[in-house]
């Protein structure tokens, strides 16, 4: 039996090689002895809302480097986090560890919890002098030339020796003297704007050096060119650059569809009536203040109830009290409560009169027409089935805005919206209860913000394309196309299916932005395939099945 089993069939299929060709077809022996990964959180292996050890161990650079060991690369050094939940990037009170999935709510929504952070997560690592993975969570391309980033970004500072603390990111990278590099920067030059709902505008938050803004094309181009030139200046360093995926397709922006407000027809009717009542109420107030009240006070003056000298101050005082409490204005300005009650009574009688009702009806109609013309969506319209979500909008005359197709709700609004659905389902349509549950401007992207994002991505990718075309030492891995493929069609890699669906899709981690280990393995494989194709190398890929997707309880 031992004899028999020793005669197992043999396969001789693997033949790794770093002998390839450069862009002009010259034979090149690629030198992978110092592979340096340049990038942000996606390069660091950030996942589930934190940088933690398991995510780092399956970062795409780590997986690529493992395959490169077959062709002479050394062990890949990463700035590994201490054991535990890792860190989300916050310092002090907001510091938390990774997200974990604990189950699903009754309505089928994932229930997420934060793990405790690792102890002293930002302490400098011991291998600062031999690091290969320089992925820095939060890093924007625009910051890479700035000195002193190490004092601002805790993930960067832990990767630096004390003498480098004030060096720029570019200086640190060039100093590490790569023989080969991968380069994936630029995502955060748009992502901060997108994940903050564009709330600070394209210039970003002035208090935080323009953070959460959109990097201008000219600044992007200049920084990108300089960085790549510095890396390839020695004439023997090769690299792969990656472009910017369409951030609006990732689950953080798609998990909650714009029209995810589900109503039955009875609720829709009540909601429409409530909105109509809201507008009519506002119009009525306006009619009372501008038309009815002056007439009533004039009547009181001519009846001798009050002196003419007090006519104007009474109108002002009552208006103020009425806006505060329309049903029972409380006397102010030295007038008696009896007088106020008398006015209120007369106004209420006036409001019953057909002529006044007619005026209010007409004014309501005019107001609706005007609002619909000037700020579409400010008066929501509900129907049975899926409805555009309602968000708070300070610029809207109603204070509300209904989303339309092409606008996005951020995953960060999911808890509020779950409560909103629950409130509506339990029959509560009280505006005061609902209003605080509506997403704010910081939790949605409107059409203009979406256009800003799409324009920027297009420009960035055009710039990256040009840089690649002009430099014979670098090739492009079109990760934009792979994201699109995974999200729009799904990918089936030998039974391992990846889609863009939140939690169940397998590619994206629980934060809806970063990838799962399996998602990173896919990126690693596709990058290796690009190298094999462009440079005629033979580097084996990894098996996706060996890397996990989202972990269920």
């Amino acid at each position: 039996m031992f004899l028999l089993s020793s005669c197992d069939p043999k396969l001789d299929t693997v033949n790794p090689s770093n002998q390839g060709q450069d862009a002009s077809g010259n034979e090149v022996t690629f030198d992978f002895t110092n592979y340096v990964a340049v990038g942000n959180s996606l390069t660091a292996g950030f996942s589930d809302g934190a940088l933690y050890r398991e995510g780092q161990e399956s970062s795409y650079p780590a997986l690529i480097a493992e395959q490169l060991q077959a062709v002479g690369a050394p062990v890949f050094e990463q700035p590994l986090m201490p054991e535990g939940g890792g860190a989300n990037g916050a310092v002090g009170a907001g510091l938390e560890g990774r997200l974990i999935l604990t189950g699903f709510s009754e309505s089928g929504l994932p229930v997420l919890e934060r793990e405790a952070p690792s102890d002293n997560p930002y302490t400098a690592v011991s291998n600062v002098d031999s690091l290969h993975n320089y992925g820095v969570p939060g890093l924007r391309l625009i910051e890479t030339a700035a000195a002193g980033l190490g004092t601002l970004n805790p993930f960067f500072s832990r990767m630096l020796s004390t003498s480098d603390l004030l060096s720029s990111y570019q200086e640190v990278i060039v100093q590490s003297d790569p023989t080969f590099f991968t380069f994936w920067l630029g995502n955060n030059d748009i992502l901060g704007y997108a994940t903050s709902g564009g709330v600070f505008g394209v210039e970003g938050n002035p208090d935080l050096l323009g953070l959460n803004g959109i990097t201008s094309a000219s600044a992007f181009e200049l920084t990108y060119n300089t960085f790549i030139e510095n890396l390839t200046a020695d004439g023997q360093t090769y690299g792969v650059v990656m472009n910017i995926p369409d951030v609006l397709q990732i689950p953080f922006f798609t998990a909650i569809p714009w029209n995810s407000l589900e109503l039955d027809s009875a609720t829709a009717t009540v909601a429409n009536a409530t909105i109509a009542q809201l507008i009519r109420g506002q119009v009525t107030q306006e009619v009372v203040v501008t038309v009815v009240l002056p007439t009533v006070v004039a009547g009181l003056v001519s009846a001798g109830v009050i002196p003419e000298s007090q006519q104007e101050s009474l109108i002002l005082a009552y208006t103020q009290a009425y806006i505060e409490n329309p049903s029972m204005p409380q006397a102010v300005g030295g007038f008696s409560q009896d007088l106020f009650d008398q006015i209120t009574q007369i106004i209420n009688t006036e409001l019953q009169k057909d002529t006044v009702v007619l005026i209010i009806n007409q004014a309501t109609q005019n107001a609706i027409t005007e609002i619909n013309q000037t700020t579409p969506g400010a008066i929501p319209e509900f129907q049975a089935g899926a409805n555009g979500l309602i968000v708070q909008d300070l610029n809207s005359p109603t204070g509300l805005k209904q989303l339309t197709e092409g606008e996005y709700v951020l995953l960060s609004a999911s808890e509020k919206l779950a409560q909103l659905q629950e409130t509506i389902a339990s029959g509560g349509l009280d505006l005061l209860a609902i209003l605080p549950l509506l997403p704010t401007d910081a939790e949605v992207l409107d059409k203009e913000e979406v256009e800003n994002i799409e324009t920027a991505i297009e420009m960035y990718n055009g710039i990256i394309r040009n840089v690649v075309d002009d430099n014979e030492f670098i090739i492009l891995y079109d990760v934009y196309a792979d994201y699109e493929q995974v999200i729009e069609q799904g990918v089936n890699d030998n039974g391992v299916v990846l889609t863009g669906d939140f939690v169940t899709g397998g590619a994206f981690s629980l934060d809806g932005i970063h990838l799962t280990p399996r998602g990173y393995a896919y990126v690693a494989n596709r990058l290796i395939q690009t190298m094999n194709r462009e440079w005629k190398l033979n580097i084996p890929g990894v098996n996706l099945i060996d890397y996990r997707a989202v972990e269920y309880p």
Partner: protein
Amino acid sequence: MRIRYLVFMVLLGLPLAGWSNGFQVNLQGTRQQGRGNVGYGFRPDASSVFYNPGAMGFLSGSQAVIGGSLIFSNTVFSPLSDADLGIYTDQVYSTDNPLGTPFFAYGVFKPQETSSLSNFTFGVGVFTPFGSSVDWGEDWYGQYALQEISLEAIYIRPAVSYQITESLGIGLTLDFILGGAEVTRGLPINSATVNDPNVNLDGNADVAISFSAGVYFQPSDQWSFGLNYRHGVDVSIVKGDVDLEVPEQLSPLFQGTTFDATLPLPSVIGGGIGYYPTDRLSLGVDVSFITWSDYEELRFDFDAPIGGELSSVSERNYKNSWIFNIGGEYKVTDAFTATAGMYYDLSPVEDGFMSPETPDSDAFGFTAGVAYQVTEKIGINGSFLFLTKRERENIVPSGVETGGVSGTYKSNGFIPSIAVQYSF
């Protein structure tokens, strides 16, 4: 009675392993296996109940035989990481197949020449011409396609032959087919609490009924010819058990409890020639044609959704295939005979449609055997088969759900066999 005992053992579900192409198991006679599995038109024995019932009447008397084989088989697989460029990952996976032990038992009863039934010969057989047993384990590359499968089909066959003339016999059989299947697939779920989320489908087939027919012609002492037809039949499992291991939170997505499935067993048309140039030397050839094109898809229908799907369909798209056998026997002494042969078994699986359950490719079989007549009544046969399947690259075609994975397979097998025969 011995035969009944054996039937009982087989029905208890001894593990079987398919070791011919498709999921055929061509291990129905130790003596035949020793000479390249030649049996349709070659010198009959009790195994003719399987190979050609038309030859039963040519036995000199009644005879019973029981025997079985041990299948030591192994398949290795190396996954492609880039099918376009033909680049492989650096991992190789290997099956851990259970030892296959197909058995057979046949009895041929010849009425006395004075009997009014003397032109008839009666036979009974139990054998396993189809089956498959492959275990890739839980953690292998294609675990979502297949972790483990075992298929089995057991034939219980009464047979009768009629001697038209001294040199021409015909035979007919009625086949009762029992069977079952068990398939385990991994589910693409990672869980902190469930170690290996998977779905296990296990069911017994309803009894299927079919038939076979054969003709045997022996015009002279030097030549014999045989033809055999075994009729194909669909074997169906109704309401087999679905056993799911999934995290509790996902159970709303995995509601299925039973499944239905149908597996077609193909028809086999075979012909063979025996040639006996001297008293000591005899030679034979066989050709089989198998209607594997009946096997279009492997389909499981569930009573309620499993992972959102009410059915699981894998394209099989088999084509009809052939087996060519050649072999011979040499009588060293009156009691001792040596045999040898080989065969070539063409795969019914089209390029790109290989699946982990039948990692099929064209196969060569090399065989040798001995036969020893211990007493006038008792004989022992032993044989050894070495089978090697060609290394074959499989690239799953895009847009087709084959349930397969892309990479290269290679398989071989070592199959010793032994049988005891008793004449009376």
